[in-house]
């Protein structure tokens, strides 16, 4: 590469283009690989299965965390407890999405782009969301079929004192 790249452009599945700082892009292992590989010259990175709506969120996360890392480094290493807590609060607010599906899309985007922090955060958020639900609700959310036979269902219900509904 001739000159250092300051920004990269990512293109959503809807065809919209967004600029990302390199620091933000490095939050994604996928993008990091591409940036550090000299044989690839990046102009635009298409992320085919991430819509504009989700991509905007993902970029927002990456930028915030990149900024936090830079600030921490500038302060000479460790983040203070209050700074870490502030970031956690930001993360919690960030994950408050209006629609459940959006959450899964963010999770999948983090998975695809290999953004560990966002992936863990999204997994935890989903876990917290589903832990109180009934098996029936779980099946609906994850698109699963109840493949137990009626006899098996009966046995399980008795054994575990739980319902299949």
């Amino acid at each position, binding site marked *: 590469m001739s000159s250092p790249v300051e920004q990269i452009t990512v293109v959503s599945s809807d065809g919209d283009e967004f600029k990302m700082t390199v620091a933000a892009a490095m939050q994604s*292992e*996928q993008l990091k*690989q591409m940036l550090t590989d000299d044989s690839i010259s990046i102009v635009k990175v298409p992320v*085919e*299965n991430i819509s504009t709506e989700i991509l905007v969120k993902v970029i927002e996360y990456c930028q915030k965390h990149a900024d936090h890392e830079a600030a921490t480094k500038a302060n000479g290493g460790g983040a203070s407890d209050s700074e870490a807590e502030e970031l956690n609060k930001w993360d919690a607010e960030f994950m408050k999405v209006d629609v*459940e*599906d959006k959450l*899964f*899309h963010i*999770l*999948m985007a983090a*998975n*695809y782009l*290999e953004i*560990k922090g966002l*992936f*863990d955060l999204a*997994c*935890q958020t*989903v*876990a917290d969301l*589903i*832990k*109180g639900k*009934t*098996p029936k609700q*779980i*099946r609906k*959310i*994850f*698109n*699963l*079929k*109840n*493949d*137990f036979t009626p006899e098996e*269902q009966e046995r*399980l*219900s008795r*054994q*575990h*004192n*739980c*319902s*299949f509904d």
Partner: protein
Amino acid sequence: MAQMRSSQPRALTRMEIDGGSPVLPREVITSILIRLPVKALIRFQCVCKEWKNLFKTSSFIAEHLQHSTHQNPSLIFEDYGIPDPFRVCLLDSEMRVLEVQSDPFFDSKRCVWTINSCNGLICLGIVNVPRSLSLLVWNPATRETRLVSEVVDGCVDRTLHVGFGFSQTVNDYKIVKICDSENDFLVNEVEVYSLNRGTWKEVEFGKLDGVGMISGGFAFNGAIFWVGLKLAVDEDEDDIEIIVSFDIAAEVFTLIPMPPLPSPVISASDRKYLTVYGNKLALLSHTVSEDFKSSLIHLWVMEKGTCASRERWCCTKKYTSSPYLGCRLGYMLVPVTIWRNEVVCNVTEMPSDYLIEDEGEPDDERRIVMFNITTNEFRTLDIRKFILGYGIFNYSESLVPVGNMHVEQLCF
């Protein structure tokens, strides 16, 4: 993170959308499920066969345990009972106290005590009437129990030191029963029970010649450790405190020298506790000032093989607390374990010989004091409301099964 091979560009499959929600790949679902509390996972066994089978796989159980230990390390407080039934309370990482539902087995008024907690399993000793000893392996989260054969021989009347731990190498949990005779307090019998085999077997203990055990067993990294005393051979020599280590896989004992601790001010009650710090074996000791007004806590970390000569243990003093003045005269702090970067201490009465004067009506000193290792600050935890007498153990909930002997599965 779901299995990621990051180098080559992946086939960009469009996420299947079915009725609005994306279909998540199996690895992603697993990453979500390992974060769920055991209670939820037991309920979700009814979702589908794939999930039911997934929760039984050792890889899922191990990942779940790892996450549970990292995210929600807890403390178990046991109430010795007598005359009340045995009770266990749990203090979780969000400082909530939860009463753990005891197995009906504990409701009869037997003497129950906790031997050790390991990977979400708790090993308990139970003295029955007529006098015999039972050992119970209990997973409080899944509510499974397993009764290990009752000990009916004379060993019950001798002093018993029991340890419970796990070895990755053999993928087995074992209970180690060390008996000594009341006469000379030296070890004279060792038996080991394997949860996989389901049987007891006698074990060689030649290394323990002339050794008596002092503390209960503590498990870490495939071994169980006790504080012991090597009795002096000659009359004019001193007894030496040592650490006894039992390799769970190889079933072999080793002796480890103690750190160079100062002579205690109070020799009668000088209990040391083994624990884990920074993923290494550590020892907690305490001293009391000569005027009995302040307590100090010491933390030693045991490092293996870092000394010049071959495999040897050395200890580095990692931490000394600031003096704790908060106890009334007659009480001292005894550090028992480390939890989330804090040293957890029992407030304990000093042996009566050391009480200077009668201070009138003693106030209720049932509290736990915690020292933060980083900030050196302490805080008090009032546990009076919850329990009367207490053993304290580190605990993380898990799905680890206890096996199928005498299993009583009561699920939610």
